[in-house]
């Protein structure tokens, strides 16, 4: 009996001791988070206005993978201070919409709110297919006709939600590359079918938004290539299939590669003035009124990439290209440079397209463009 009492007492002592320890831990668990610095509250701040003596100037930002809000805000402040009037930004459908239809709007809300606060117009590119909208074991870029309606529905909801905040929407990207279809073999007709599905639904949801046909990748790939199809041939086929009825403007990618911006265009040459050949096809189909939006452009100054130029040339070519577009292409509404900044270094040639480093150090090309726009 004594032993039992003793055991019982010791059990109580242990329990009591455990209780006290648990209580201490609980108190610590409550207090510890309170000792952490409060999260930084980021507010859009007072509305800003872009000053630019050359409002054609724009940039393609890369905020899709930027997690921290202050970095989103800082990026857009720098864009505004440089004198760019518009940003082109990628909003991946796959990142936002779940199979039950719910949409995670937090990140696009942040990007668009901060862009608008800086006085920037937003050209939104929509792409990438969620897993639930494509067959198993297909890549994010895979899109087939079974998902066109879902894609259209999401794009329409996007357009409606951001009415008055997003001025332009681009349907897809570089459809003349097989990669952009998840390596599904497609024809220009497939892309026209996509446009025909998306355009009316989006315009119904938001009649104000300007719908842009996706920019084609400048390429000389011949028909039957596993990689893609020559952009000029592709555009011609798009128009022949009636694409003109399903976009308000056409996005175009205009890279200079190793050529100065003034180099004359030719069908077998990939250079900045290839835009003029694109325009000629539009004219051939009587689509003179439709405007062009250059949503990617620029030169690269990687030290060993064969398609790169010296850093000084890159600065000069970029400024000359902005001047050239403004002076000679009245049908070009905007010219966005690829790319403003990456969230992290790639340690390869993409880093040498940027205007600002991941650490927010502005490159000399940024300073020159800023000066060019009068800032």
């Amino acid at each position, binding site marked *: 009996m004594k032993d039992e009492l003793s055991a019982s007492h010791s059990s109580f002592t242990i329990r009591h001791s455990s209780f006290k320890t648990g209580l201490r831990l609980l108190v610590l668990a409550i207090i510890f988070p309170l000792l952490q610095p409060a999260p930084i509250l980021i507010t859009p701040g007072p509305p800003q206005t872009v000053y630019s003596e050359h409002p054609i100037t724009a940039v393609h930002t890369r905020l899709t993978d930027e997690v921290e809000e202050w970095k989103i805000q800082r990026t857009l402040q720098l864009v505004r201070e440089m004198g760019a009037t518009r940003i082109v930004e990628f909003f991946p459908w796959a990142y936002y919409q779940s199979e039950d239809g719910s949409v995670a709007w937090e990140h696009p809300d942040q990007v668009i709110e901060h862009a608008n606060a800086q006085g920037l117009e937003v050209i939104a590119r929509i792409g990438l297919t969620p897993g639930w909208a494509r067959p198993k074991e297909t890549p994010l870029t895979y899109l087939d006709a079974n998902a066109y309606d879902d894609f259209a529905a999401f794009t329409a909801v996007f357009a409606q939600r951001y009415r008055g905040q997003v001025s332009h929407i681009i349907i897809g990207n570089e459809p003349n590359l097989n990669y952009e279809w998840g390596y599904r073999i497609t024809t220009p007709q497939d892309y026209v079918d996509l446009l025909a599905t998306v355009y009316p639904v989006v315009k119904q949801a938001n009649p104000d938004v300007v719908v842009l046909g996706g920019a084609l990748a400048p390429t000389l790939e011949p028909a039957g290539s596993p990689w893609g199809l020559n952009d000029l041939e592709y555009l011609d086929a798009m128009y022949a299939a009636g694409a003109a009825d399903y976009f308000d403007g056409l996005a175009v990618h205009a890279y200079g590669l190793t050529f100065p911006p003034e180099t004359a265009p030719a069908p077998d040459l990939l250079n900045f003035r290839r835009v003029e050949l694109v325009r000629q096809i539009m004219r051939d189909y009587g689509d003179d009124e439709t405007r062009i939006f250059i949503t990617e452009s620029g030169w690269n100054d990687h030290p060993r990439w064969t398609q790169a130029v010296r*850093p*000084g040339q890159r600065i000069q070519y970029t400024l000359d290209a902005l001047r050239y577009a403004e002076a000679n292409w009245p049908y070009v509404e905007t010219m966005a440079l690829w790319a403003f900044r990456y969230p992290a270094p790639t*340690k390869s040639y993409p880093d040498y397209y940027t205007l600002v480093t991941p650490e927010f150090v502005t*490159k000399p090309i940024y300073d020159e463009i800023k000066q060019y726009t009068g800032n």
Partner: protein
Amino acid sequence: MMKLNNIRGIKVTKVRFTFYVLRFTFFLLLLTACKVENLTWERIEKDGILRVGLDPTYPPFEAADDGGLRGLDVDLAHAIAADLGLEVEFVYFGYDGLYDALATEQVDVLISALVIVPGQMRDFAYSEPYFNAGEILIVPTDEMEIMEMGDLDGRILSVELGALGHVEANTWGQRLPNLTIQTHNSAAAAVTAVAQSQADAALVDAISGRLALAEHPTLKRIPQPVTVEPFALAVRIDDERLLENLNASLEHLNETGKLNTIIAQWLN
């Protein structure tokens, strides 16, 4: 008594369970060890050939022309192979295709002035660096006051317009209010400006800078680099024995001075 038995029973069960877990863990470790130990190094030893992938468009590290394949990386590959008792076989690829060639086992190692890319480290492993291609300071040989960037306040620093040296100089310019940055169209021109006393120092990448020094005996480089951009060899992530041997060889070449001799031969 009953309680004691129960406790004992639990203890016995616990001991058995722990024993089984340990046996299972040991078995797993054995399996893991077998997996890591792949056959690349065995095959290299058996054949006596090290297959090296490179993009021969980047002189002075690698270039192929009528005179054949030559360059710093080519000599380094030969030296490593000799050190390991192997022959070397070069396979050419475009810069964009180098890692794909390694992943698909078309080569054993890449020796092609590759910077270390953290994003590649899931599939590939890098050797110890063998060259730093970061920015360096070049000053006149009789200059004794400039030892680092912080000594440049009140001085003129020449850079290549728009290059990484220019970006770095601008960053320092925010700390040194009296630093004057002078831009040139090339790294060579920036170095020449120092030789012609138009600038006090040049900040250029190590490759351009060292090549330019060969033409200007009145100039020297500050040994401590301003930025770090290491070049390394790349192998597939599982080729641990190969990587160990390559690192051992690099260390040996470094200790014997052979590595510096090769670098000096192509860059000085």
